[in-house]
């Protein structure tokens, strides 16, 4: 695919510049520390085509394939990377502005994925939510794949005003389990006193690839909760950066990756505490079966002026097979002296003593393993939106054969 890219010439100056930037920077390689365990090259070795507007008119999509979508009140739907006004419906408030925008701009980030995204971006979300807006109902963003071997680039910009209460969920739906690559970049600005909850439900099947770069800025006393739940993926790479730019702001990062077969999930988080009296709380749990691989790298930087920061990070992994692998690295860079910070990483198998206890009560080995695995995931599951929690729980249960 890299060869294909080299032969493209864009009319748009900014796109062309970004394309050249990307080619000059080159793909991430495993020689780079941040990509040590994730073989990005594998993604672009596939013969992906760039999604175009033309394709949308050719496809017929059956909404009934996605029950989640039918039940959702507010939804922004992208089919094969193209926005579908027909299937979408967003809050009808003057305070909620949405339009489909590719958000192309002049870009020189020095990052391959970001430049690639700016060069190839098709559609994207532009949302501006004004001060005081409050919505109970979840706003679902759906990325649906129906055409095989496409690369979808979406760039999303979301500005959230003061005192806003809002919940978003992103879903990757791949009903025919086809191969595809999503390169998503999102910028989320959260103003004072706002409370934002964001669930990323990454369930695109074992054939899809995803690189997600999410950049968040938090202003004073805002609360941001992000739940990244990865249930499948050939290669999934999440890069989350949160700049805590306002005093008394806090964030909660919860992650759960449930991997089978040859799934590969790489979660990177970076939280920069730039102001005093802020909190961040991170819990990522992994359950790895078969030959799957998990990577976790959580970095916390506390600036010198960020006194009274509390930052807690924990990564726990349950290995269900001898061939599963987890690479975990916590990093703390603390420049202030009056803070409370901690980090912990564990990897374990199912406890024999717990297993025997269940067996001694008449529960067979397989069912006992399933109960214990579900219990392990439970700690993160109880932190996500009810509706998504039920969806994921059902998925785990059917994976593990529990009723």
């Amino acid at each position, binding site marked *: 695919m890299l060869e294909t890219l080299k032969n493209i010439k864009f009319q748009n100056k900014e796109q062309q510049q970004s394309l050249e930037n990307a080619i000059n920077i080159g793909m991430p390689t495993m020689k780079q520390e941040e990509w040590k365990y994730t073989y990005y090259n594998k993604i672009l070795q596939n013969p992906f085509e760039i999604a175009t507007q033309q394709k949308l008119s050719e496809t017929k999509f059956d909404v009934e394939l996605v029950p989640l979508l039918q039940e959702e009140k507010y939804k922004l739907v992208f089919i094969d990377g193209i926005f579908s006004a027909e299937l979408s419906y967003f809050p009808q408030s003057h305070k909620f502005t949405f339009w489909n925008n590719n958000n192309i701009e002049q870009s020189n980030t020095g990052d391959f994925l970001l430049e690639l995204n700016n060069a190839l971006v098709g559609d994207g979300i532009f949302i501006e939510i004004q001060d005081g807006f409050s919505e109970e109902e979840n706003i679902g963003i759906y990325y649906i794949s129906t055409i095989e071997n496409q690369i979808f680039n979406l760039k999303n910009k979301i500005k959230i005003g003061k005192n806003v209460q809002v919940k978003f969920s992103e879903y990757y739906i791949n009903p025919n389990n086809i191969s595809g690559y999503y390169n998503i970049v999102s910028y989320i600005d959260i103003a004072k006193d706002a409370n934002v909850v964001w669930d990323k439900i990454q369930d695109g099947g074992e054939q899809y690839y995803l690189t997600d770069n999410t950049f968040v800025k938090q202003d004073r006393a805002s609360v941001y909760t992000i739940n990244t739940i990865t249930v499948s993926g050939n290669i999934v790479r999440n890069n989350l950066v949160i700049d805590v730019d306002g005093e008394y702001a806090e964030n909660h990062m919860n992650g759960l990756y449930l991997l089978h077969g040859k799934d590969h999930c790489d979660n990177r988080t970076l939280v920069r505490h730039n102001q005093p009296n802020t909190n961040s709380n991170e819990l990522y749990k992994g359950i790895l079966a078969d030959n799957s691989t998990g990577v976790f790298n959580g970095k916390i930087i506390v600036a010198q002026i960020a006194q009274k920061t509390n930052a807690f990070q924990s990564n726990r992994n349950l290995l269900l097979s001898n061939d599963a692998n987890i690479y975990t690295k916590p990093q703390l860079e603390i420049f202030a002296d009056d803070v409370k910070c901690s980090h912990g990483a564990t990897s374990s198998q199912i406890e024999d003593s717990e297993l025997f*206890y269940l*067996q001694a*009560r*008449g*529960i067979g080995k397989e069912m006992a393993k399933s109960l*214990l695995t579900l*219990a*392990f995931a*439970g*700690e993160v599951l109880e932190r996500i939106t009810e509706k998504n929690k039920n969806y994921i729980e059902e998925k785990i249960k059917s994976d593990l054969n529990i009723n």
Partner: protein
Amino acid sequence: MLTINNLHVKIDNKEILKGFSLQINKGEIHAIMGPNGTGKSTLGNVLAGKEGYEITDGEIIFEGENLLELEAHERAQKGLFLAFQYPVEIPGVSNANFLKAAVNEQRKANGLDPIAPNEFLKMMREKMELVEMKKDFISRSVNQGFSGGEKKRNEIFQMAMLNPKLAILDETDSGLDIDALRIVANGVNKLHTSENAFIVITHYQRLLDYIIPDFVHVMFDGKIVKTGDKNLALELEEKGYEQFETI
């Protein structure tokens, strides 16, 4: 109900049970007493089917079946229950879900349908009263944050829910204060019928003031060296286990 014949058990190449034999009939309460390290817990674990033990000789017949051919969960489904000395904590699995799974697996093994939710709840509440458990117990994780006494009461509670034919209490009294002891003993006595049987493994005589045994066996160096009635327990309390060292 249970016949253990000349059982020899090794662990890590060391022989722990050296020709252990015992006969239990329904309706009976047998106490097994002995000093530490004599194989009391090994007996309980081997009966329950814990892995890691090597059975070099002997047999165990439970209700006419060769127990050693059954896996741990099958033995439990057939009506064998081990109340653990050190019950393990299982975070994330609620007491309710755990027991519902156990009850339903047992019912399935006996050709019954899963228990109806309201019937299950009613049964839980009834048995919780028996061991004086608080209401929030249902949703709490198994044994998580429980005191020693609460963990032991939970063992008796589970026994009440599963209604086993043969219950083995592995040093259930260890670490219990007098109140917890009374609750545990009361639970066992209420569950005791002419159809089931109990093996009470204990180091101290105290529990046997509350759970009156039909037989008391002294276990020493991996086998039973003396059998008597409840008075034997009192005699042991007075004279200790040294008298058996010469045998």
